[in-house]
């Protein structure tokens, strides 16, 4: 029989890893859904109304609304909630469009390595000068949820982007 004291540390690590369930196979404790929509402005009975529909005839220049909803399915609060959304390919983030109740919103211009508030980001130009980052420079959007999300509670984060 094995004497556990003599099992090399590497082998122990391998045995422990083998028994650890991968994250995607765990029962879902928090549910996340993400959708892409267009806003359609219509006039009903003389009143201008805005409704949303799945993306329709998306051509360059169109504005897309991305909404992520998350729901705590567990029976205890979820903490340290952070939602990270890379700006979709071939799209430009629409400035000031990121929203989410109870969140602090930050952005990255370096591919998701570092995040800062919108007004605090800079980029370096080809000539070596620095300039404030524009929405077109953003690569990622991050929502940091304040506090905890109670059992059964939901939250929402959204932003808009233009198709290049």
């Amino acid at each position, binding site marked *: 029989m094995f004497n556990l004291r003599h099992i090399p540390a590497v082998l122990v690590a391998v045995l422990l890893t083998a028994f650890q369930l991968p994250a995607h196979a765990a029962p879902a404790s928090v549910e996340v859904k*993400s*959708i*892409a929509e267009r806003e359609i402005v219509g006039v009903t009975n003389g009143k201008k109304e805005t409704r949303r529909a799945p993306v329709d005839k998306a*051509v360059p*220049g169109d504005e897309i609304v991305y909404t*992520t909803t998350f729901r705590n399915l567990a029976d205890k609060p*979820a903490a340290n909630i952070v939602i990270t959304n890379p700006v979709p390919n071939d799209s430009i983030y629409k400035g000031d469009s990121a929203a989410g109740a109870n969140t602090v919103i930050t952005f990255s211009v370096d591919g998701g390595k570092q995040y800062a508030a919108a007004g*605090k980001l*800079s980029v370096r130009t080809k000539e070596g000068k620095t300039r404030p980052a524009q929405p077109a420079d953003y690569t990622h959007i991050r929502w940091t949820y304040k506090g905890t999300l109670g059992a059964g509670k939901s939250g929402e984060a959204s932003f808009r982007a233009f198709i290049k």
Partner: protein
Amino acid sequence: MARKWLMAAGILVMPAIVPSSAHAAGTASGTLVSNSVLLQCSLCGAGGITSAAPPFVVDNKVNVSVTDDDGAASSVVAGQASAVSAFAISNLGNTVQDYSLTVANIAGGAALFGRTDNFDAAACMVRVESGATPGYDAADTATFINELIPDGSRTVYVVCNIAASQAGGDLAIVSLAAATLQGGTPGMQGGATAATVGVDTPATVDIVFVDAVGSDDAGRDGRHSARGAYLLGTPVTLSKTIANVQDPSGCSAASGCKVVRGSILTYRIELVVPGAGSVSGLVLTDPIPADMTYVPDSIVVNGAPKTDAADGDQADFGITSANIVTVSPGSVSAPLTIWFTFRTTIN
């Protein structure tokens, strides 16, 4: 960790992302746009939970523009064959397209370039510049535009004949229209395109017309058009006469003067430009004939005596060019008549 994050704010970095299919016309149709979200939390496991919205495809944004390439009417003469009016056609959309081309004569009374149409050019045809040599030539045989890429443009010529009976000042306006056809089959003219109606299918490329209103077509119809014109030039009359002869015998005009050695001849050059328009940089020159000698300070322009020197009076002898009378009225407007005289002595 929070403190480290605050110190990192304002860090100077190069933008990491380079656009993959970016150009002025926009993302190429058929491109899939994906969005994925990462949720991290205390209950979300080590790697967090990801969710992706179903990707949608970028549709075909059809936009074409036709513009007159000359900026003014093409100057032609009566009886001219293969008179050319040039246009530029640009694909402002995000997909490779073919374009059919049609030319139409605009009815009399329409205005362009400050003038009014009063005749139709004859036997008009359309030819696409082949790229071999600039300008219309026999190598330009294509009658439709084949496989024009987004942001690409081609030069197209309207080629017509001008009847021999046309007169100076006559104007013919032509309209060139380009209609968007399907691209994708090099060497063959593609089929017609139509805007996709009904609900979007996120997985297939739909067609959306966004073209503007052209000179002879509606907006959002997959077509665009522009007008050009042919203008018949006005012939000018340049004449040179001997206005006066004085011989050494003290003759008079009544008795008749002889052209002999020592006679003084007065030459008169007259330029008549009828019609309307303007000329800039007009210069008239007349060389002194052989066996004659110019009489100094004998230049008179429109009745005003001029000096031989180049002193700003728009006339000189021998300064601008040796042994030549030069009269430079500069910018003038038609209709106009300019004449000048000078005297020479027969050697």
